[in-house]
């Protein structure tokens, strides 16, 4: 079932949490809401669930207008950041809760409920844990119980608030792969909130980037990363450094250097060129320009070298400017501290200067 929200606005004691958010989550899709804290992503999720009410705008599940439906009527599966497991109940009772509170006419039989619980315990790889209490579980296990409890009622959509926020790095990684698998098996339309870009880019089919109550961009992870729609997205997702440029006739001028403005039209004026490490190719000082490459070159001094798992990441301070950009050093190039180098600009995104 797809989720459509239109023009949602919400205020908390004078602070604008959402300023007109519209979003379409396709049926069966796994979507991430990514943004810094205070961007409104959790508020958006809670409004979809019916845990908050918006001042304006509407929420649709498929063709059903859910805007005025109570949280119970919306029939969503919600997984809370700190799991919110019922601590006085066993794992099995937690999972069965949503089925047991149904009206008698809709409630499955005892046997059907316990069969469903067993099925979910198996799906969550928690066989044999049904009799335990939440306090006896690890964080990752609690998270899986919370997910099982949400799935037990066969919800219209599945909503997860920072699902891995409270877990350590190793468990997060395992659970990520595992959530992808669960999603593939159950096929629920799923929305999860995160502030971790790796999590969003790796896990989601599409990512919605939020910033101060607005959606900046919605797109597939590759799209978000390679074609950021705004300066905010460029800076928030992935490593990027910005260089002040003047745009003139489709070319970006950086001091005396002319950079072939990489592939996007922009009005003349001041702007920023956002450069990711792979937009730059490091060469020795004064090395010849490789044929077919844009002519733009930046000169600078190496101020730091980091060894990463896959190569060397070099920090270069650009000449005459207090800007440090990062680039990957090709194997075999000496890059000692303080060495003069040139950087060929292969790509990058230009956004107008917001101050103007």
């Amino acid at each position, binding site marked *: 079932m797809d989720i459509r929200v239109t023009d949602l606005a919400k205020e908390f004691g004078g602070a604008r949490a959402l300023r007109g958010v519209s979003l379409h989550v396709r049926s069966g899709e796994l979507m991430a809401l990514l943004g810094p804290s205070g961007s409104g992503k959790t508020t958006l999720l809670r409004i979809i669930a019916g845990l908050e009410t918006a001042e304006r705008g509407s929420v649709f599940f498929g063709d059903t207008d859910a805007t005025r439906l109570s*949280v119970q009527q919306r029939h969503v599966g919600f997984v809370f950041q700190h799991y*919110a497991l019922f*601590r*006085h109940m066993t794992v099995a009772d937690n999972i069965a809760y949503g089925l047991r*509170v149904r009206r008698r006419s809709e409630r499955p039989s005892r046997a059907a409920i316990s069969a469903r619980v067993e099925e979910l315990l198996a799906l969550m790889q928690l066989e044999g844990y049904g009799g335990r209490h939440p306090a006896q579980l690890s964080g990752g296990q609690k998270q899986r119980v919370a997910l099982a409890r949400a799935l037990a009622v066969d919800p219209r959509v599945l909503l997860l608030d920072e699902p891995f926020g409270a877990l350590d790095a190793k468990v997060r990684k395992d659970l990520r792969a595992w959530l992808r698998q669960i999603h593939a098996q159950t096929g629920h339309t799923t929305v999860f909130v995160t502030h971790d870009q790796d999590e969003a880019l790796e896990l989601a089919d599409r990512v919605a980037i939020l910033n101060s109550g607005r959606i900046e961009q919605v797109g597939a992870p590759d799209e978000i990363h390679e074609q950021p729609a705004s300066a905010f997205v460029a800076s928030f997702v992935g490593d990027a450094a910005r260089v002040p440029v003047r745009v003139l006739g489709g070319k970006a001028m950086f001091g005396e250097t002319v950079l072939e403005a990489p592939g996007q039209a922009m009005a003349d004026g001041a702007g920023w060129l956002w450069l990711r490490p792979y937009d730059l190719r490091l060469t020795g000082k004064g090395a010849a320009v490789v044929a077919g490459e844009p002519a733009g070159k930046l000169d600078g001094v190496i101020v730091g070298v980091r060894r990463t798992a896959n190569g060397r990441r070099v920090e270069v301070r650009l000449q005459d400017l207090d800007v440090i950009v990062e680039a990957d050093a090709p194997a075999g190039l000496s890059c000692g501290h303080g060495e003069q180098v040139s950087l060929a600009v292969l790509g990058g995104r230009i956004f107008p200067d917001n101050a103007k």
Partner: protein
Amino acid sequence: MPDPDLQRDRVYVSDSVVTEAPWARAVIIAFAAIFLALFLLLPLGLIFREALAKGIGAYWEALTDPDAVTAIQLTLLVAAIAVPLNLVFGVAASWAIAKFDFPGKSFLITLVDLPFSVSPVVAGLVYVLLFGAQGLLGPWLQSWNIQIVFALPGIVLATVFVTFPFVARELIPLMQEQGAADEEAALTLGASGLRAFLTVTLPNIRWALLYGVLLCNARAMGEFGAVSVVSGHIRGLTNTMPLHVEILYNEYNFVAAFAVASLLAILALVTLIGKTFLEWRYGEAIAHGRR
């Protein structure tokens, strides 16, 4: 491989920071023990000694005296009304404070504490001024033939006022710490508000609630000041146990006074033992509930 000796050293150092020298510990413990013995255990023992000074027969006679029986019954009745009321008020107030944000919230928290900061005598006087014969609502109440002051309703009102904070004070910090996520989870799973309260909230707060009720009950039975002002001290009618003790004492009927007082003391002990038993028996569950 860490050096075991080094580790032991570190443990010793960190220990010594928070642990006093043995002699200092002994002095502190002795001081506390002597203080408790002098100000708590000794008076408690004296009550029972005085009560039994003329033998068990006189003790029993004092307790079965019709006025004493009425006082005991009245005290139980007042507690039976006031404690459930404050149970409901306390849960409602804590719920409102812990789970919602609304204007005037900090004012409400202050109000909850008011009975602790106001002298019980003042509390009693307020009710007399409000409901008494010459009071604000007195003539109106009289025209309907409703008696509040110097009767059961006044005593209940005063007791409710004085014991109001006990349940709320126990619950507010716990419920604030627990937040509303559990209830929200129950609601998203389809539970009604009442169902969520009964199956999720109540189990989460049950131990703190029980503490609060125990303390509230002990105070409701033992309250003197506020009740004294509104009761009118009508023997065999509006005298609660503490008031009865005072009257007997003023009449130099020490055996009877201490006999009734011993009942109150026993009540206090039972409360304490009940609380300790709960902590011992359900300590783990209480710890879980608090988490």
